[in-house]
């Protein structure tokens, strides 16, 4: 930088020549220099102030943001002091009224640290005394094995056992906190709940993992630590489930059936109110999967969901509904029922001869195979498949249990004209009781497709319109008449007019080739109250025999119908349904037409 001299020679000489005071020039230059210095200092100070202000702004922004963050975050739920890596958290499962179906219970696991043990032999002896299944000599050998430092002895202890182990006074025996899954209602709803087991184990905690049913289906949701306080609300009603189980168990024993299943469904929402499959098991002590024999005979087998059977005449309702809906027949139209109906080498017979012709309503009421087959002939294979597909019967029926997706219906390899006829009365295609319940719900609720669910619903989902509301009304009347005049006379119970259809299907021979004559799958599909159905109930008994008469009776009318009627009689008041007089129901039907 070139500094301007205070007394530049040229102006000074000039001022001297002019006779002026040259000091003025110097003073002027000093003034200019001072002003420049002042300006420079000012800008520097201003810059510093800006920097300082920025720092303050930043600091306040940080503080403000932190305060805002603290104010807006949700208060953290207090954990039970468990480490983060292995979480034993698992949300409860409750029924539709909030009654506990599955919950966790704090307990302790027992393990040994051998290096800290004082008297391994004595401890082994004492443990064998407390737990009869422990062998003292083997346990002592494990305790004294120099290669072992850590041994799991028990995954869970009762408080009494824990106290007894504590009383041994062995410092090497230690307790690790555990949460165990408890099903307080025992066998109730066992197939829906499934069960749980310990997963990864640590000293401080062990994972709880679902193994079947809803426990497996919702495993991730139930284990989500953020949702520990929200129990999984199922659509089941524990009281109803208990009653259905009780009655079905009684019926199964009385009729000597191999198995039994019942599905109770809300026809509007598709909520499964009760789902029972017998024989059942206790999910607290889930039995191991069977290694021999028919898997379908295992208590673990969920007959309602996994059991795809040829259900017989209950399927006629679907055939007749389709024919009515497509305008192929009218309820009063006469159908030729002269038998046997021959198709190639195959002959279709009726249970007994119903004369030369029956009206469509009477085909349902009397359950004529020939009549149904003839009606379905008018629709053909393609129409039948479309209709069954719309009802979801050609695929596995979805439900929130892990087993549902794995079970599939058995369908004919080639959908021939003969298949069309046999399927119309329930042979040649298998359906699960759950799928049947959903189909019946769709038939009677005004024709909207119902998807079964195990979760409590708060609104009615709008399903696809499968049949018209008018057809639905006609089907309701027919089902009502089946009970009042036809094959399901045992279902006439005072106060609760029922509608329903029986089905007695000969079971296919497991060794292949034809059907067994003495083994029947008896099904009763019912809806109640018949004039404005709220619930659909499917009861299926596997090989029931009624031996009260002179000769054994196996048809559904003598087996499944009385059991189903007793279930309805007991359950309807629990569901809050007020009794209706039969004449009121009949009047309601008359008004509808």
């Amino acid at each position, binding site marked *: 930088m070139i500094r301007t001299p205070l007394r530049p020679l040229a102006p000074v000489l000039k001022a001297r020549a002019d006779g002026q005071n040259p000091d003025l020039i110097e003073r002027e230059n000093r003034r200019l220099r001072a002003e420049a210095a002042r300006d420079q200092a000012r800008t520097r100070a201003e810059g510093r102030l800006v920097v300082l202000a920025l720092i303050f702004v930043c600091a306040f922004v940080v503080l403000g943001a932190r305060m805002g963050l603290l104010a807006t975050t949700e208060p953290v739920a*207090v*954990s*039970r*002091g468990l480490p983060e890596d292995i979480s034993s958290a698992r949300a409860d499962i409750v029924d539709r009224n909030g*009654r*506990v179906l599955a*919950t*966790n*219970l*704090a307990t302790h696991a027992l393990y040994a640290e051998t290096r800290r043990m004082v008297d391994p032999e004595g401890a082994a002896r004492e443990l064998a005394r407390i737990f009869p299944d422990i062998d003292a000599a083997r346990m002592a050998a494990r305790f004294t094995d120099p290669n072992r430092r850590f041994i799991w002895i028990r995954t869970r202890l009762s408080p009494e056992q824990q106290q007894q182990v504590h009383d041994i006074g062995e410092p090497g025996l230690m307790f690790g906190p555990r949460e165990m899954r*408890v099903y*307080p*209602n*025992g066998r*109730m709803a066992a197939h829906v709940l499934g069960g749980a087991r310990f997963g990864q184990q640590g000293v401080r905690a062990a994972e709880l993992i679902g193994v079947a049913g809803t426990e497996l289906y919702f495993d991730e949701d139930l284990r989500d630590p953020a949702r520990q306080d929200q129990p999984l609300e199922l659509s089941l009603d*524990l*009281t109803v*489930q*208990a*009653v259905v189980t*009780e009655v079905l168990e009684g019926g199964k024993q009385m009729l000597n059936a191999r198995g039994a299943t019942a599905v109770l469904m809300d026809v509007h929402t598709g909520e499964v109110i009760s789902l029972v499959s017998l024989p059942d098991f206790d999910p607290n002590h889930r039995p191991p999967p069977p290694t021999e024999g028919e898997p379908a005979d295992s208590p673990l087998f969920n007959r309602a969901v996994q059991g795809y059977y040829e259900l017989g005449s209950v399927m006629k309702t679907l055939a007749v509904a389709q024919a009515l809906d497509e305008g192929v027949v009218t309820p009063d139209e006469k159908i030729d029922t002269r038998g046997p109906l021959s198709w190639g080498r195959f002959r279709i017979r009726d249970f007994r001869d119903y004369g030369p012709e029956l009206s469509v309503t009477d085909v349902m009421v009397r359950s004529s195979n020939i009549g149904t087959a003839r009606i379905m002939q008018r629709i053909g294979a393609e129409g039948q498949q479309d209709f069954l597909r719309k009802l979801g019967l050609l695929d596995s029926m979805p439900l929130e249990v892990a087993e549902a997706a794995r079970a599939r219906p058995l369908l004919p390899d080639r959908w021939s004209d003969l298949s069309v006829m046999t399927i119309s009365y329930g042979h040649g295609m298998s359906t699960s009781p759950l799928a049947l319940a959903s189909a019946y719900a769709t038939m009677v609720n005004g024709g909207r497709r119902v998807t079964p669910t195990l979760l409590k619903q708060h609104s009615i989902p709008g399903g696809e319109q499968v049949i018209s509301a008018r057809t639905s009304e006609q089907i309701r009347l027919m089902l009502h008449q089946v009970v009042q005049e036809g094959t399901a006379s045992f279902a006439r*119970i*005072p*106060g*609760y007019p029922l509608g329903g259809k029986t089905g007695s299907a000969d079971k296919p021979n497991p060794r292949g080739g034809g059907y067994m004559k003495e083994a029947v799958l008896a099904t009763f599909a019912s809806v109640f109250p018949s004039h404005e159905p709220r619930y659909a109930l499917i009861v299926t008994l596997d090989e029931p025999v009624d031996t009260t008469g002179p000769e054994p009776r196996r048809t559904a009318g003598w087996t499944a119908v009385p059991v189903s009627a007793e279930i309805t*009689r*007991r359950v*309807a*008041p*629990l569901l809050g349904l*007020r*009794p209706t007089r039969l004449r009121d129901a009949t009047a309601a039907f008359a008004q509808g037409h």
Partner: protein
Amino acid sequence: MKGLLYLLTALGVIGLAAWAYRENHLTQQAMNERRALEREIAELQLAISIQRTEWAYLNRPDRLRDLVEVNFERLRLVPVTGAHFGEIGVIAYPMPEIRTEPGETIETFGQIEQLFGTRDVTEDTP
């Protein structure tokens, strides 16, 4: 003047330091308290969950059914059926309470003398 300013600033710094020290301790105390409370909450939650489980276990349908059977003599509980529903018309309308004391009836009409005029009661008695 300057001296006073220095003094005040020094006092201010000392005061702030004392305040920060106190605040620090209060925070630590509050955190300890929080930990203790969390432990207590966890214990209580555990107790609640055990009691909930016990309640559910004691109210399991099987046990209730057995209890009903055992106590049938005393309670006579039967399963609810349609026959247990009543109709509102069947219920009798509550009968009006009959008052037997004449004194109250008279009081509603006021003094008997004012209604019927003053009567000599002794007149009727022989």
